[in-house]
């Protein structure tokens, strides 16, 4: 079959015409995706096609992990065991304290008639791979629509926030890391209680606080936790630590860089937190009442 002469007279549109057709198609897709977000269904279908490949590509790392797990030496296991039991004891003590504090807290909140903070449910997931997109900081995790994961869910590891779910596919989800350029987290300084907005820089391990007045009280080593006012991240999760504060009077705002506390670049297990309890709706803006005097003047 391969030895038949090539169909010389039946070649279809010229390459240039094909280039034009497919370029137009791509541009239409690009605009539909970037401007209007029309392509969710098409994305889902394509995602199902790529899924086996994605799992297959993640296999070597997993197998490597299993092999290195198998060859753990006896002494390192014993060391680990000792360290973990010690940690366990410390954590147990802390848990007991927390429990007592929680009881006290609910009691006090009851007295104040304040709404109780709900514990949010969580889904465990594993990071499959980091997307090879140099323009963004994203990772893929191995839980998706099948576990009712939705876009906007916060993702944390055992230390702190690593990002939020931005796209959900049938068995996978895409997590935008807090280091992604354009990702914002509303935070609070634990030491002073000052609220601020923490922005990613697109640089691994570097975050910056935006629009902080020069006189604001921020120091190196300050710990920042989520403030919870955005309705995305529950309050009180550790996010970052201030590493450098630069105050230059030539600028309006202080230049504050931070580094994330969670292992943002590590491949590890993560938790996808459940939806936040709905925040109360914004009150409707009342129409400005123009004072009578002004009207008379004009």
């Amino acid at each position: 079959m391969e030895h038949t002469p090539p169909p010389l007279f039946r070649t279809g549109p010229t390459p240039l015409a094909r280039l034009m057709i497919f370029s137009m198609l791509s541009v239409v897709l690009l605009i539909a995706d970037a401007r209007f977000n029309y392509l969710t269904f098409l994305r889902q279908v394509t995602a199902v096609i790529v899924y086996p490949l994605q799992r297959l590509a993640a296999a070597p790392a997993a197998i490597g992990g299993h092999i290195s797990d198998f060859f753990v030496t006896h002494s390192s296991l014993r060391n680990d065991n000792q360290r973990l039991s010690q940690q366990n004891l410390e954590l147990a003590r802390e848990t007991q304290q927390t429990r007592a504090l929680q009881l006290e807290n609910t009691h006090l909140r009851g007295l104040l008639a304040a709404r109780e903070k709900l514990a949010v449910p969580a889904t465990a997931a594993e990071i499959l791979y980091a997307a090879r997109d140099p323009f963004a900081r994203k990772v893929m995790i191995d839980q998706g629509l099948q576990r009712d994961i939705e876009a906007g869910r916060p993702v944390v590891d055992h230390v702190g926030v690593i990002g939020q779910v931005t796209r959900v596919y049938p068995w996978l989800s895409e997590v935008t890391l807090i280091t992604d350029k354009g990702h914002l987290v509303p935070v609070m300084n634990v030491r002073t209680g000052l609220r601020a907005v923490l922005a990613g820089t697109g640089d691994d391990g570097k975050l910056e606080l935006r629009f902080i007045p020069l006189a604001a009280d921020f120091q190196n080593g300050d710990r920042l936790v989520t403030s919870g006012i955005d309705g995305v991240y529950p309050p009180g999760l550790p996010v970052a630590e201030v590493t450098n504060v630069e105050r230059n009077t030539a600028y309006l705002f202080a230049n504050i860089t931070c580094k994330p506390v969670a292992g943002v670049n590590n491949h590890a297990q993560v938790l996808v937190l459940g939806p936040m309890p709905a925040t109360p709706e914004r009150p409707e803006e009342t129409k400005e009442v123009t004072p009578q005097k002004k009207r008379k003047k004009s």
Partner: protein
Amino acid sequence: MSGPSMTPQELLLPVRPGFIFVTLVAALLANLLSWSGWMAWLVPDFVALLVLYWCIHEPRKIGFLAAWLLGLLMDIADGSLFGEHALAYIILAYAGMALHRRVQRFSMAPQILHVIPLLLFTDCVVLLVRALAGADFPGYAYFLGSFAGAALWPPLTHLLKLPQRPRPDPDRV
């Protein structure tokens, strides 16, 4: 007619479409492997490299549709804009097809000199699309992958031509 940079063309067996398909899937798989640190910048876009290779060596066997679909799959896997890689790959495929007679006649070193600008141009298309969508320039390390890809061109050519080399004739003494 034959200058110093030209090589005599080999007689090769026709390539099987199944083989092209397998190599493209393998390239997609290689792209999905998770690289970290400096490797992530150095690793070339294997799919772009393979699309270019097949467009130059077998322009009748691979079409625009294949390049375009591969681009869409890459967009999903990367979580980038839908159509970004698709656009880049079809432009690359067109360039490969337009230049295939010329590139095939050259020996390895000048071939690499053809491959580098083509891969860089593909990078620029992606960069342009992302810039229009509001992303920042990611730094010059972004272009390293294209040079790494061009460096892989000779071993890749050798490897992919292996199944096409005719077997030694047992009757010949």
